[in-house]
């Protein structure tokens, strides 16, 4: 029970779906108001700025396709988080696993150039899955055998891999005679094909949608998915049911890492064709917001990722035209999460005047 300002919130016996939806809408409106205030802080006209953002994100077909390009890595990392969080395994390392996949993809794209394109694509997919899976396996096995908090170990591994990559880019993998920290570009035939002609939207987007379906089937239509979800809901009961928690836990981390790794491989093969440190703007962290807002469901992830992809895409046009920094996007994402989480909880209560004697 919560009491503030003479009002008491009491738990409701049942929360209806319309009420939940209404609460989330109220949360979004509140987040919108805060975002508007933030834009005003930058000294810009709020409607002007939001107008440019919307137009830049969804204004025409080209803009929308570019929004999907921006959404693609977010769908991958968002799905990675869904699998983990469904088992209450808090994988904060999607960022590092994404980079592990990107590393593998880059190596394959640079070294196996003699093979035909489609073969390289398949190898890149497999390679980035394995690399991400390994980077997820480490915290998984440490948790299962030693009880090490996966939250801390995954965050630490993000830093470890970034320093490893920055070492590789400063020497062994560096493009000769280049000032920037980057590898050489790999040849065009190794690149994922575009799925919308003359756009940057690539095969990775299709893969991410297929993967969403696979994750849905895995979680809700297989015995293993049932195990994952029941561990997330009640680990103790799951043990009595004979579920081998530790084994499942390690597998969940491997799958989650593999999905994020595939996301990294897809970005390299579909978009960048080379490894740099700025290929992710924190996709692995944004993914946490996406997965939570998407209610830990693949369809929710796709919807929120496209919304966030739009924010990223539209913010460029907003910055050019109104001077409001692109950084606003990360701010909005955090604010939305806070308000939606709050609204969700408040929807499970009803408000009454506090009675003086209880």
């Amino acid at each position, binding site marked *: 029970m919560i009491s503030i300002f003479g009002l008491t919130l009491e738990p409701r016996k049942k929360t209806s779906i319309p009420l939940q939806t209404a609460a989330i809408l109220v949360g979004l409106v509140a987040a919108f108001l805060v975002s508007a205030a933030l834009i005003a802080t930058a000294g810009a006209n709020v409607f002007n700025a939001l107008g440019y953002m919307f137009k830049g994100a969804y204004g025409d077909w080209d803009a929308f396709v570019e929004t999907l390009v921006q959404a693609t890595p977010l769908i991958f990392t968002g799905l990675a988080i869904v699998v983990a969080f469904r088992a209450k395994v808090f994988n904060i390392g999607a960022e590092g696993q994404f980079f592990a996949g990107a590393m593998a993809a880059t190596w394959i794209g640079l070294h196996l150039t003699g093979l035909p394109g489609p073969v390289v694509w398949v190898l890149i997919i497999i390679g980035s899955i394995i690399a991400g899976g390994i980077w997820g396996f480490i915290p998984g096995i440490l948790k299962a055998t030693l009880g090490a908090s996966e939250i801390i170990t995954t965050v630490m*591994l993000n830093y470890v891999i970034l320093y490893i990559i920055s070492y590789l880019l400063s020497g062994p993998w560096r493009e000769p005679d280049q000032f920037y920290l980057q590898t050489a570009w790999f040849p065009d035939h190794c690149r994922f094909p575009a799925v919308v002609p003359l756009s940057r939207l690539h095969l990775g987007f299709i893969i991410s949608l297929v993967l969403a379906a696979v994750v849905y089937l895995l979680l809700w239509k297989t015995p293993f998915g049932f195990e994952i979800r029941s561990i997330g809901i009640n680990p103790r009961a799951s043990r009595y049911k004979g579920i081998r928690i530790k084994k499942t836990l390690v597998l969940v981390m491997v799958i989650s890492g593999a999905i994020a790794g595939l996301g990294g491989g897809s970005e390299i093969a579909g978009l960048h064709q080379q490894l740099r440190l700025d290929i992710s703007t924190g996709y692995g962290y944004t993914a946490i917001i996406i997965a939570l807002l998407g209610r830990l469901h693949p369809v929710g992830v796709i919807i929120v990722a496209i919304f966030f992809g739009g924010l990223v895409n539209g913010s460029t046009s907003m910055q050019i035209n109104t001077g409001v*920094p692109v950084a606003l996007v990360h701010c909005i994402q955090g604010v939305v999460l806070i308000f939606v989480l709050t609204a969700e909880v408040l929807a499970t209560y009803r408000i009454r005047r506090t009675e003086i004697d209880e």
Partner: protein
Amino acid sequence: MNDIFQTVFLISLLSGMIRIATPIFFAALGELIVERSGILNLGVEGAMLAGAFVGFVGGFLTGSLWLGVLLGIMAGGLLNLLMAFMSVTLKVDQTVAGLTINLFSAGLTFYLFRIIFKGFGSSNLPNLHTFNVIRIPILSSIPFIGEVLFSQYLLSYIAFLVVLPGIFFFLYRTKYGLNLRCIGENPEAMDMKGVKVSRYQYLALIFGGMMAGAGGAFLTLASAGLFVSEIIGGRGWIAIAIVIFGDWKPFRIMLAALFFGLLDTFQLQIQGIGVQFPYQILLTLPYILTIVAVAIGRRRAGAPIHLGIPYKRK
């Protein structure tokens, strides 16, 4: 290496150990109080970032470093007030709430930095003159020991000589400290005794945020003299690991923090004397050590029993 060179190396190693441990130590002491109240607060990184950012802006705009520190401390406390509202009042999953705090802080500080320092680019970052080292008269002239222990920043003295004993006294010698520790073990019993559980948890979180804020402000105002969005570099997470490794006890936490400081200084010193080894690989050492620390430390007995479980009155 000759003897003089070795002594100089050792002095800078040990004095660097204290300096580098300070921000993590602040944050870890704050987190100790928070976790003793039963709240698992994962927003340390975010609170440190808020402290670093607001501390820097305050110091830069007012010209007073101490005002900056004060504002940084307040920013950390304010951010954790939000954490308290989410985790104590709304009882949002504490892991989720803490992560939310981190993401929110990262987004907000990055955005505000861009707005406040519009004309600056990555090649001409705004910077300020950092705090000076305070040499304590007489003591600092003791050979070796004076250089190591008594030529530090004032904030380091405060962390080790004021905050640490203060927290020890509070936890183990006052009624309130006893109540706080009991809340972390059995909030229901304390509630029945009439102790206001949520008030303790609110205050613990605000204090924890202030300490993290102080640690963050130390990074911008004493160490770096500038702000970049990656400045915390995982130190908030390392602080959480240090609380585990220090078995939720103040003095062991100090030793753990110093150990991390030593390792970090060691890799800096090795870079400094030009050993041919990729410095990026050396930079991974503190993170790898943190992984090792939580892998070993998880079996310790000092964890509050009710840590991370929201307390709901039946």
